[in-house]
């Protein structure tokens, strides 16, 4: 007889995601991913000026503000066939990269590392052995005895006080935790250091975007940054130098710490390269445009069906016709009225709440499909698509990751092993290293272009009478994001956002096909079903962000069951 376990919610940032699994013989036999809250924010946009839409979409989510702003202006530009000046492309690309560097570092250290790192083992670590281990895998100069000692002392003080604070809910001592005390200390020390570097990445967003958390410099047709290399009130040489310095520090942290830590942790958990594969259809859109028209990109896009790497399809542009035509949303198992999948331009959001019923409707998330199939999105999809296409930068860092994991763990790693829970972490580190290199490239492109005397940052949008439609895409930290807009006589007639976590947290569709989270959990072994750490590991590897909604402080202090076993 299978036991049902409900985990509600699962994401460490912002709630709303609920996972139900059936457990048979200590392994997951069935799974449901659901979202517990309806947003419907898109309806607020109807009737508004398309030029203002990005200000509103930027408020969809407190974590992913920048990405929704960018996809929005791109959707309007696509509808108007409006080109974007080179400087604006480079400035936007730098903002997107800096945001992603921040996001990936935060994801690993603040949201996922503690699924693998047992904090309460840290007091047992030998400082000398930790220092020796660290020196053997990375040139990072802050891998010093002093830093390790300070981090260990901090944990000892917390443990001694009995007030675990932020660590209150960890599954410490769980049988699935397998790192040595020294590796635990190494990772924890970097968790503390990561705070400094994630902040530096955000500073870059702030310098270019005017402000964080909500950038101010976007405009349909370009950016609002004034460029003048000699004026302190504009984007000048001092600010560009400051950006260069900040980026170089963040990139060093990514290459010498984050990338290495992911490989080191992965090398200690080889079985997790066999767990968590799930849906092996992968989707990514091209991003980081290199020209005004958006005809060449630094990040490749395309799709792979049924894990057939050799049969990869390529998207030539960020709004490729194949992508544009292929997307639909199914509501057979979602709390909405509707009897057939609809294209986002025709999307309807008409709620039909029935309560959770695993055989019928059970989620507020619609089921996005590409050519009728569920798709996994995110860094893994992007890395696989790039690898399959022979994209040089992707291959460079994928090979580096594979070699590093193999060297530390003494086992053979193959590209196919990336299709797993740990593979998703590895792919995120690979993408982050790629973005680090691209950050410096795009800063150089911007400076070179300005040096030629091109100060142009904006083309003026002109709205035709009648109806036009467009899609704005962005390969966001969590995967393919698309905003779909229909404009009539200069006003928004319809607006739909198909976000990465909708693809990955999708419920079943009319044919019964599982979404990626659901499929990835099947057959996962659970050492202690009452502490389903293994389920968390796989879900967190996708980097869920269901939030995009309310943010109020729950002062009632009620303890809500995190895990319930029926």
């Amino acid at each position, binding site marked *: 007889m299978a036991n049902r376990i409900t985990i*509600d*919610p*699962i*994401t*460490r*940032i*912002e*709630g*709303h995601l*609920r996972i139900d699994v059936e457990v048979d013989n200590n392994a997951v036999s069935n799974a449901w991913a659901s979202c*517990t*809250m309806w*947003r*419907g*924010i898109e*309806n*607020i946009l109807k009737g508004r000026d398309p030029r*203002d839409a990005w*200000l*509103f979409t930027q*408020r*969809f*989510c*407190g*974590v992913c*503000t920048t990405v929704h702003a960018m996809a929005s202006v791109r959707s309007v530009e696509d509808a108007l066939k409006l080109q974007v000046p080179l400087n604006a492309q480079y400035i936007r690309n730098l903002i997107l990269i800096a945001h992603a560097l*921040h996001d990936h570092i*935060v994801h690993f250290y*603040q*949201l996922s590392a503690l699924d693998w790192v047992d904090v309460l083992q840290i007091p047992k670590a030998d400082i000398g052995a930790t220092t020796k281990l660290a020196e053997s895998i990375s040139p990072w100069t802050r891998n010093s005895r002093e830093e390790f000692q300070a981090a260990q002392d*901090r944990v000892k003080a*917390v443990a001694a006080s009995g007030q675990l*604070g*932020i*660590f*209150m*809910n960890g599954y410490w001592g769980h049988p699935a935790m397998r790192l040595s005390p020294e590796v635990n200390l190494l990772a924890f020390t970097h968790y*503390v250091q990561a*705070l400094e570097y*994630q*902040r530096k990445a*955000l500073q870059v967003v702030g310098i270019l975007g005017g402000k*964080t*958390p*909500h950038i101010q410099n976007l405009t349909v047709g370009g950016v609002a940054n004034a460029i003048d290399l000699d004026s302190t009130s504009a984007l000048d040489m001092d600010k560009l130098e400051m950006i260069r310095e900040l980026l170089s520090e963040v990139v060093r942290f990514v290459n010498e710490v984050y990338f290495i830590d992911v490989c080191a942790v992965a090398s200690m958990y080889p079985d997790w390269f066999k767990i968590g594969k799930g849906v092996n259809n992968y989707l990514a859109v091209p991003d980081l445009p290199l020209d005004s028209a958006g005809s060449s990109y630094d990040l490749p896009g395309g799709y792979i069906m049924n894990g057939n790497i050799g049969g990869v399809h390529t998207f030539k542009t960020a709004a490729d016709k194949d992508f544009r035509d292929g997307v639909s949303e199914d509501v057979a198992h979602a709390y909405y009225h509707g009897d057939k999948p609809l294209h986002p331009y025709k999307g309807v959001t008409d709620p039909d709440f029935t309560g959770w019923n695993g055989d019928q409707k059970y989620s507020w998330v619609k089921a996005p499909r590409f050519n009728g199939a569920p798709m996994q999105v995110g860094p893994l999809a992007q890395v696989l698509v790039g690898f399959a296409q022979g994209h040089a930068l992707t291959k460079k860092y994928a090979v580096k990751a594979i070699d590093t994991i193999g060297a530390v763990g003494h086992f053979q790693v193959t590209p196919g092993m990336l299709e797993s829970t740990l593979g998703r972490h590895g792919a995120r580190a690979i993408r982050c290293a790629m973005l680090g290199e691209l950050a410096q490239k795009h800063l150089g492109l911007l400076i070179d272009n300005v040096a030629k005397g091109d100060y142009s940052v904006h083309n003026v949008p002109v709205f035709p009478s009648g109806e036009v439609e467009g899609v704005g895409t962005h390969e966001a930290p969590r995967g393919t994001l698309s905003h779909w807009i229909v404009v009539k006589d200069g006003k928004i007639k319809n607006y739909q956002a198909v976000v990465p976590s909708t693809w990955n947290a999708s419920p079943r569709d009319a044919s019964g096909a599982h979404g990626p989270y659901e499929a990835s959990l099947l057959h996962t072994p659970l050492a202690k079903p009452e502490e389903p750490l293994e389920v968390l590991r796989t879900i967190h590897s996708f980097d869920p962000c269901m*939030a995009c*909604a*309310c*943010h*109020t*402080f*729950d*002062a*009632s*202090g009620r*303890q*809500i069951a*995190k895990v319930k076993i029926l």
Partner: protein
Amino acid sequence: MKRILIGGIGNVLLGDDGVGPYVARLLAAHYEFEEGVEVIDLGTPALDLIDQLSANEAVILIDSVHADADPGTVLLYRKADIMRHAPSVRMDPHSPALVDALLSAELFGVAPADVLLVGIQGESFEPSCSLTKTVKASLDQLIAEVMSELDRLGVKHCRRNQPIDLGIWWASEEQLESPVAL
């Protein structure tokens, strides 16, 4: 110079959840503060709130709360009150990133010494760009609490003779026509 953050938290697209950003803009438009005081619309931050917390010696946050109180009730929480909560994410749609961020900042030894959350029990969190009348009626009291905390901290503030533009771009026309009495 003391570094003080006055931050409004909330989603301006979800009714009364927008009270924090709204009040942040009211304060910036109607008041001047001594150097070192920063008034920010923080939106709906997650753990990046750690950065905002750690950069300041005192933090005053304005947010809607769920507290089993009547809508419009203004409630105050000090640092210890906030840190008493478990850091787990909750089932209800309201993220406790504030709790997580403060607990993390404390662990890393970078938390501000003074934290005050000026909360207000919301009435409606449905998608909308307006505050309810109930919440608006309590805004004067909410702002008075912020000022009294500044006094306690010894931070100078005064009313502007000429308010600057509110910059509440999300509000409906109806809302802008009946701004809060200040």
